[in-house]
């Protein structure tokens, strides 16, 4: 909760110390031990002043919006709780390194007998922070430089820049973020990026240079994001032996799309949640704001978690999506869906399920994938309470299917196609949680329902990532 200092409500002697006004450091004086013990919970109080120490470039209006609730507290416990919430909101702005709360009785001529002063002692982040890393990957080394300018103009705007210079590819990203003062969940950001990727399962290399603008806002319990994105995509073959189907997709194209995403997340954590549900629905319409790719794409992700006896968690997830090209041009390999891999249907090689040509996987226009998981603590609970808590054992059943749409046949035929020849797998393994961002898995998988052309990875499979089926 940070540091909360509280003193008794007895007014101090008239010649007591002065408490600092805004801009000065508040002094803390020890109270004599014979002060009366008060039962503080039910005492009515009024918060008269809220002070801020340590503001530099931050403007007043955004601060005032975040701490407005503190004035509404009616008793001491509420004051402590509202101050704590205000502290959390101030930290969420991402402009302070530290926020301490000091609750004190009110002094001065207009002090009421039950008046309180709340002081927030804040330390702003520096104007510019930077980071420099080197990374070594598959036959490639790169230098990554990151720059962050938090609270650029005083209202929690943030500019981040990341630049990665590697032996094979370079990429960069620049982003500007601005929240609405008083309403941090409504925010606006503009991004500029160049990203390169190599996809050996399709023998494809992709370079995207793009700009995007997005606006997020909450509606009741859901969070919505509306985005426009313009991307100049360059596709090429990764090797001389790429299949002709992939070779035909080489070249440049321009995608300009509008998309909308809705997220409802009631889980207690995004990695290994114990309870709650997640629903994400995303739709994208390309081609109506320019560009030479035209499609409508819909995809969703659903996850439900329930805690069971003995500290175990049962989790189900369902993913699906459909891509409908508009006009007579066929869909591009860069827009289609892929299935398979340690973060998708386990037991199959990365993105190596479904339509393929000469060993290169081309993706599909419609897919679904589902999983049932049982997470339990490690047997015999080694390292309980410490390191052992980061691990879980994991039993799973995954299934999914991927296909292309052929419009002559109609929706019933597509549903039938997605329901036949289902790929599925089962197995068990160990999951390691990495902070609150990622997880590692080591599983033993048994793939079933393998169709001709799919590449499997039966036996032990290792996976690292953020989003798992």
């Amino acid at each position, binding site marked *: 909760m940070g540091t909360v200092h509280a003193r008794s409500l007895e007014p101090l002697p008239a010649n007591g110390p002065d408490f600092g006004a805004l801009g000065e450091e508040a002094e803390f004086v020890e109270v004599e031990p014979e002060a009366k013990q008060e039962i503080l919970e039910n005492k009515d109080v009024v918060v008269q002043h809220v002070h801020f120490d340590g503001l530099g470039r931050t403007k007043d209006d955004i601060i005032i919006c975040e701490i407005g609730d503190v004035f509404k507290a009616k008793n001491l416990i509420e004051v402590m709780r509202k101050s704590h919430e205000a502290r959390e909101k101030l930290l969420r702005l991402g402009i302070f390194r530290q926020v301490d709360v000091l609750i004190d009785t009110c002094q001065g001529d207009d002090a009421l007998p039950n008046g309180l002063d709340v002081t927030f002692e804040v330390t702003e982040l520096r104007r510019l922070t930077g980071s420099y890393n080197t990374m070594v990957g598959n036959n490639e080394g790169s230098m990554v430089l990151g720059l962050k300018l938090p609270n650029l103009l005083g209202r929690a705007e943030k500019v981040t820049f990341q630049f990665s210079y590697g032996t094979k590819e370079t990429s960069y990203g620049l982003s500007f973020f601005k929240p609405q003062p008083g309403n941090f969940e409504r925010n606006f950001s503009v991004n500029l990026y160049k990203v390169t990727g190599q996809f050996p399962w399709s023998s494809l290399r992709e370079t995207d240079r793009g700009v995007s603008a997005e606006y997020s806002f909450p509606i009741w319990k859901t969070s919505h994001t509306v985005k426009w994105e313009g991307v100049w995509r360059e*596709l*090429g*073959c990764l090797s*001389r032996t790429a*299949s*002709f189907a992939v*070779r*035909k997709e*080489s*070249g*440049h194209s321009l995608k300009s799309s509008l998309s909308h995403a809705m997220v409802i997340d009631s889980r207690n954590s995004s990695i290994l949640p114990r309870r709650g549900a997640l629903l994400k629905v995303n739709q994208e319409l390309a081609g109506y704001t320019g560009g030479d790719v035209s499609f409508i794409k819909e995809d969703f992700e659903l996850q439900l978690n329930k805690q069971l006896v003995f500290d175990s968690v049962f989790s189900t997830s369902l993913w699906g999506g459909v891509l409908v090209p508009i006009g007579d041009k066929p869909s591009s390999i860069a827009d289609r869906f892929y299935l398979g891999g340690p973060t998708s249907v386990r037991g199959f090689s990365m993105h190596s399920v479904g339509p393929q040509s*000469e060993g290169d996987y081309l993706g599909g226009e419609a897919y679904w994938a589902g999983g049932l998981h049982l997470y339990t603590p490690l047997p015999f609970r080694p390292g309980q309470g410490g390191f052992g808590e980061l691990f879980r054992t994991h039993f799973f059943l995954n299934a999914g299917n991927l296909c292309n749409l052929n419009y002559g046949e109609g929706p019933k035929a597509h549903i039938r196609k997605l329901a036949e020849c289902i790929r599925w797998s089962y197995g068990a393994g160990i999951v390691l949680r990495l902070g609150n961002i990622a997880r590692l898995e080591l599983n033993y998988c048994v793939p079933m329902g393998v169709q001709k052309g799919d590449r499997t990875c039966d036996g032990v499979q290792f996976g690292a990532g953020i989003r798992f089926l």
Partner: protein
Amino acid sequence: MSLVAEAFVSQIAAAEPWPENATLYQQLKGEQILLSDNAASLAVQAFLQMCNLPIKVVCRANAEYMSPSGKVPFIHVGNQVVSELGPIVQFVKAKGHSLSDGLDEVQKAEMKAYMELVNNMLLTAELYLQWCDEATVGEVLEDVDQCCQALSQRLGTQPYFFNKQPTELDALVFGHLYTILTTQLTNDELSEKVKNYSNLLAFCRRIEQHYFEDRGKGSSSIRSS
């Protein structure tokens, strides 16, 4: 590609006969293809016609990105992709078709020399015209004139450059001269230079009639001034 890889590919190529669905890819006619690329594509088409190998021409906007070397035209035969006239001639030779088998070593060397001449002079002229198009075009035209003179002298009154059988040199010369003669440019001086040599004109017309119009191809034909 390394020598070993090339040798390996040739072995594989030699094993299969020429399929019916062999395709040649070039950029879109009319709005996209450039003078030099058009010449190169025609040269390859003429060469394959002379070898009596069926080929279908497909125009795609991303043809130069599809090509493994970045240059057009390229052919897709079976599951092999080969681009540019030189490698295509090699590839076709590995399959057992060749136009220059009947030539002796001296003639082969001569043929190579003439092909280099065409590439250096005519190709450079085309590139200059399509990119620079300035008033200082005098030198370029001089070169073209010299090249045409050399070709005209070599051709003389024969139907093809070497005896009565066409070779890849004929295909290359046809590709370039035909393109120069039939493409509308802002500057007609280049095609005027070529038209000065009547035996070259006759040569182009002969190949056009024999290999293209006969098979129902050829949208633009040579008009004599």
